[in-house]
């Protein structure tokens, strides 16, 4: 009562003596989530630039005589930074050289679209695993198990893909469904344990991540799954009938990204307009009031984890049916764990998660080129990703650095911490 009675002190208006321009900038600088996210990326790139310079021993040497000839150090730093970020951009979005080569007939159209194709390819599975985390979080659960659910999704999708013998289209649908169901089952376990016994979903899902990974390593060696023509740990390949169609050749981008957009739309609708979405948001915001209003919290938790698991499982399916085609111990990569960061970057909103996944995919694709063309190690891209997430997770820090006016962003920190 009294808390609502007294508006918070930070709502205080700024003194009115500033000019129009400053007021405009202040409004632009008000700490809404979009501004904070963009500034986080900027900050991460600035720090990344410092790291690029420090890690280049030649440029570093020029700083030894900075006072006598500063131009060496400045141009050296500029060259290495612009080369790195230039290649990051070319690798992620568009390489002007390849485009002009295509225009002049000396290159192929595939070459021109290669970069964006790579970005979308990396992004597709992350959309699914990110949505998995985001949906669970909106319902008040911390799904750390995206990795395990995606891994199981890989297994069931791949096995269904090469074992079913169904014709084209049907085989793909069957394999995708298998991935969805596999992940859903892996999500159901922590869900039902949480609902029935109160077992904390974080612990259970972490443990199930290990279980899934070890199961994958084992199942690859099992007869019928293992590729008899190979001596290493690799499964049979999913035939074309079960693969997500792509342009072929160097363009790896496939139907997975289209599916990802459709699923994002479906999840956005689920959260906003469905009865189940209402239930899960209610339970996520206040389980006690939900229960009092007759919503079954246990049922919601269980179903929520099934949905989250299914989404992550689809992510695994998109990975194995889209690019990998075979099961290897590393088939799922880090898509589950990166899904956590994608959801965080996307503020647990459906469309936000899609954009965050695209950003992640772009960093991945651009990072590859940055490594081979500019000689910057791929680890630096990892550092960039981590820095972005750190700044997004600490909006107060970004606000302080840029002197943003306090706004809703400050509440994010609290809401993210609530899951624990």
């Amino acid at each position, binding site marked *: 009562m*009294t808390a*609502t*009675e*007294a508006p918070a002190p930070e709502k205080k208006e700024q003194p009115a003596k500033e000019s129009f321009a400053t007021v405009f900038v202040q409004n632009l600088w008000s700490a809404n989530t979009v501004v904070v996210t963009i500034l986080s990326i900027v900050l991460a790139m600035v720090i990344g630039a410092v790291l690029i310079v420090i890690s280049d021993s030649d440029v570093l040497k020029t700083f030894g005589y900075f006072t006598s000839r500063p131009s060496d150090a400045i141009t050296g730093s500029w060259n290495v930074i612009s080369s790195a970020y230039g290649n990051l951009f070319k690798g992620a979005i568009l390489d002007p050289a390849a485009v002009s080569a295509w225009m002049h007939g000396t290159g192929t159209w595939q070459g021109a679209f290669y970069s964006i194709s790579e970005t979308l390819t990396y992004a597709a599975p992350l959309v699914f695993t990110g949505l998995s985390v985001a949906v669970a979080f909106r319902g008040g659960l911390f799904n750390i198990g995206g990795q395990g659910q995606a891994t199981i999704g890989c297994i069931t999708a791949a096995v269904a893909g090469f074992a079913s013998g169904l014709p084209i289209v049907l085989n793909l649908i069957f394999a995708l469904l298998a991935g969805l169901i596999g992940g859903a089952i892996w999500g159901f376990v922590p869900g039902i344990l949480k609902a029935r016994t109160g077992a904390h979903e974080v612990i259970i899902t972490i443990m199930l991540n290990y279980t899934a990974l070890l199961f994958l390593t084992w199942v690859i060696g099992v007869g019928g799954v293992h590729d008899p023509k190979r001596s290493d740990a690799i499964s049979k390949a999913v035939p074309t009938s079960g693969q997500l169609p792509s342009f072929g050749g160097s363009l790896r981008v496939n139907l997975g990204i289209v599916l990802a957009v459709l699923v994002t739309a479906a999840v956005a609708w689920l959260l906003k*307009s469905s009865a189940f979405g209402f239930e899960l948001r209610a339970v996520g915001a*206040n389980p006690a*009031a*939900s229960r*009092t209003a007759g919503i079954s919290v246990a049922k919601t938790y269980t179903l929520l984890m099934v949905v989250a698991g299914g989404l992550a499982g689809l992510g695994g399916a998109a990975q194995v049916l889209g690019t990998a085609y075979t099961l290897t111990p590393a088939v799922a990569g880090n898509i589950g764990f990166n899904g956590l960061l994608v959801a965080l970057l996307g503020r647990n909103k459906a469309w936000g998660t899609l954009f965050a996944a695209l950003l992640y995919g772009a960093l991945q694709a651009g990072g590859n080129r940055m490594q081979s063309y500019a000689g910057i190690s791929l680890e630096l891209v990892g550092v960039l990703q981590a820095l972005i997430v750190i700044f997004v997770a600490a909006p107060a820090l970004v606000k302080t650095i840029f002197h943003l006016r306090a706004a809703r962003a400050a509440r994010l920190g609290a809401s993210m911490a609530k899951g624990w």
Partner: protein
Amino acid sequence: MGRRPRRQEIPLRLELRGITKRFGDLVANDHIDITVEPGEVHALLGENGAGKSTLMNQLYGMLQPDEGEIVVDGVPRVFRSPRDAIAAGIGMVHQHFMLVPVFTVAENIALGAERTRGGPLGVLDRRRARQEVIDVSQRYGLPVDPDEKVENLPVGAQQRVEIVKALTRDVDLLILDEPTAVLTPQETDELLAVMRGLAETGKSIVFITHKLREVKAIADRITVIRRGQTVVTTSPDTGEDELAALMVGRQVSLDVEKGPADPGRTVLTISGLIVDDDRGIRAVDGVDLEVRAGEVLGVAGVQGNGQTELVEAVMGLRPVLGGTVTIDNENLVGMSTKHILRSAVGYIPEDRSLDGVIREFTVAENLVLDMYDREPYGNGFRLNPDAIGAGARERVEQFDIRTGSADALVGTLSGGNQQKVVVAREMSRPLRLFIAAQPTRGVDVGSIEFIHNRIVRERDNGTAVLVVSSELDEVVGLADRIAVMYRGRVLAVVSPDTPREQIGLLMAGVTDAVPGAVPGAGHGVTSEEGQA
């Protein structure tokens, strides 16, 4: 900001001159003048949202006034933070306690003013902190155990800890923000006695409240605030009706207006009900009750005598360990809460912010919290936002919910309006049984009147109504019959005309004075006995 000289002998005199505070277009405080004399209990009376807390937050340094002066002992002061206010001799006990549950009383009191041995990085001087607590609690007659963990203390004792904490900071003016909102009648009486004692030692007290009875019992002077303006500063001789009218800005009736009940068939039958509380201790121990259509059965009792568990068990929110609960002879035991709500039962839970509303949801969403999957609001699969929006606007109108729009978050509404959201939700469908637990707790006078009238109207429509309240006035005003609960049992069912003292004695477990009361043992009496 220099400290005031040692007080005790020099009591503090406070003047607020023309305090004005704006939030955007909203003028929360509009030239408020208040003088608090030394040793005075000064009540600040006003509805929720009138600007009382904003004013006190400025006095305590949490907000800075846009205009006006805070004058302490004739010297204008500027408080940039609570630290400044404390240094000037002003302390505050917040409505929501600022205590660390897992710390002991002494640790909580030392928190923020820790003393160490051996420099700033030295060892915490727990012994000294403990001694300080004992000294202060003895000096002012505020019994607290310095070694008990705060989480183990009842609410009333936690509040004493807050008061002791303020007093150890050597303050001479204590602001108490809605201190009785969370207290039982006994705890309230104890607190009023403590306030009186503090005033006698020369401390001034600013007592923020909207409960007229308490104001009249304790205040030396009363300042009424309405919509950010000082309406009047008056003496406690002013009548309750007059004070209420000053507060709300129109005549309000404090007594519930209702005609005689016309009880029909028995709707709710509870027999031999046994329920445990969260700790597994028997909370309801063989209760028999009946509620008929068209009557209000009030359950009176000091908080914590099983009323909460009784209601939760009926609503399917707590396992029933024995006995039966039926509505029109349909069994309710073992049914889901959703099933019970769908059996034409309406329910206002006692803890509004925890169980009643979802603060992060809009008014519209909260209004369909138990109806979102039914026509016209949805079909169990998808929601119908148009119907939800239209229904919400209609009920915002009908139930006089003061909100900017139906899409505003409920957390931004005042307590009274949040409660109206719950009332609107639960009363806008045909009901056989309506259960209201603490329906007006933390609700302002205007809303109380509204909610009471709604409950009476529901009764007159032929609904069986069960009202649980720890406010005896409320039970007596609303009920056609009163069941008094004590230690998990119904000691007696009496008429609301029974003298207050007798009901009070029953609430304390004394059965001698009341004919027909069943002393302690066995089952409670059946309703017929009490109705005579």
